[in-house]
């Protein structure tokens, strides 16, 4: 298992952002769905070793991120695209990707080729020497994806990766996800249900910091059948049905 989370919690003051999450997953594309404020970004930041959990146990790629040396090893094998990725406006696309390849401690001799491959993978080859300040939002997002995959990560964490991409780019991105998921664990946090249906082998739905559903996209779709739940597509109806059921249980308890 590349990710093992046991009873993970994270609290910000009085807000319980992550509430007792347990999860095990290996290679494949894993979709993390949920409404805004469900705790997806906090969970992703914990797995990215950026945010320590308040309690619980976490093992990534068979290692303990609490130990300095093991955390370093995890980070060398990690790709992370934060929800709000800042950019260095004076950097070119190639310089930006190279910067993070070096910070991931890739062997310097491998860096130029890895940078070129990552930029080509996201289709930014014709803008590789363009300054980041000259790029559109979608192109910047693709530059962010390029830095995340430059080290051929074993664990790839993408927070809202398709934000700003046009439909054609999103379709191409889903194909890239399926390709990456054959050899790595890819976690995609999104509120776009159709991305999950098209690219993910497994899906978890979060609400109020808890995982309220875990299964395949087909199983999520099945939850919505015959319920009359809102949604334009079968998967959306499953999403709505699971959320409604989870909230009614919570309301009944309180």
């Amino acid at each position, binding site marked *: 298992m590349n990710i093992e989370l046991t009873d993970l919690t994270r609290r910000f003051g009085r807000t319980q952002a992550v509430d007792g999450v347990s999860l095990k997953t290996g290679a494949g594309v894993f979709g993390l769905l949920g409404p805004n404020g469900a705790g997806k970004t906090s969970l992703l930041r914990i797995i990215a070793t950026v945010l320590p959990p308040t309690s619980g146990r976490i093992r990534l790629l068979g290692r303990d991120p609490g130990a300095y040396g093991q955390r*370093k090893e995890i980070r060398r094998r*990690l790709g992370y695209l934060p929800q709000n990725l*800042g950019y260095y406006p004076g950097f070119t696309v*190639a310089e930006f990707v190279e910067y993070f390849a070096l*910070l991931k401690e890739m062997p310097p001799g491998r860096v*130029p080729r890895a940078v*070129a491959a990552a930029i080509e993978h996201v289709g930014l*080859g014709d803008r590789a020497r363009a300054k980041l300040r000259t790029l559109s939002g979608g192109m910047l997002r693709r530059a962010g994806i390029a830095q995340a995959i430059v080290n051929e990560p074993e664990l790839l964490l993408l927070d809202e990766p398709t934000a700003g991409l046009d439909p054609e780019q999103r379709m191409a991105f889903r194909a890239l996800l399926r390709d990456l998921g054959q050899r790595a664990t890819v976690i995609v946090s999104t509120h776009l249900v159709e991305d999950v249906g098209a690219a993910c082998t497994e899906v978890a739905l979060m609400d109020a910091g808890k995982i309220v559903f875990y299964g395949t996209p087909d199983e999520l779709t099945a939850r919505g059948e015959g319920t009359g739940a809102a949604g334009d597509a079968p998967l959306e109806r499953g999403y709505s049905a699971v959320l409604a059921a989870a909230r009614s249980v919570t309301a009944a308890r309180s």
Partner: protein
Amino acid sequence: MSDLGAGRDDQTVPQGALGDAGPPDVDLGKVWISVAAQVWRREPGWLERVAGRALRSPGLARALVTTPSLLLGWVIASAVVLAAGAGATLGTGTPYVALFAPAVAAAGIAYAYGPGIDPAWELSQSMAVSDRMVLLVRALAVFGLNAALGLAASAASGAAAAVTFGWLVPMTAVCALALAAATVTRSANVGVAAGLSGWAITVLGVRAGGGGLTAAVASVSLVLPYLLFAAVCAAVAWYATRIPRGMS
């Protein structure tokens, strides 16, 4: 992103597809990536190469040369301020360089690293090269550069030796204060404000206590308090950037 997911890496030209004139089994994708790698390759400058060897980390060296307060514009601005101080010292006899240097260095230290200063700061925190190490290397480099600029300005202004070197110790304390404030609050501006106001209060306080304007930098009795204060601030900065515990 038209070719995204079907990278040129995977495109292999079938044997014989290029005819008799073309070499068989040429992987055009790999050829293109190799060409692109050479074309897009960035040649590090001499400073980055030296830093890479000294630090034994190309990533750390790259992070060092991208320090906002080590960029040319910032260095020129610092040099101009200190040059103006040297000119004022020559004109009035008051050692303004000694008073300016700690403040200029404190601003540089506060603007060396952190959220708001590094656009991709959150991403940097997930890197194998630790952000604490980046902060340490950048802070030391900024301090060293500002010390060198200050010493040059002091020497040019012809200040007394006690004053020329006397400000190095208070500069350490003021820089440590700015660093501690910037890391605790995660705000470079707060760091600058803390450093500047701390230094102004010290200079004016010592002057009000009976010393002259230069007493804050020339008094030997203040050396130990400055160093103790710097050590406390450094400890605070170290704690504020500690490696998160409780991950497992």
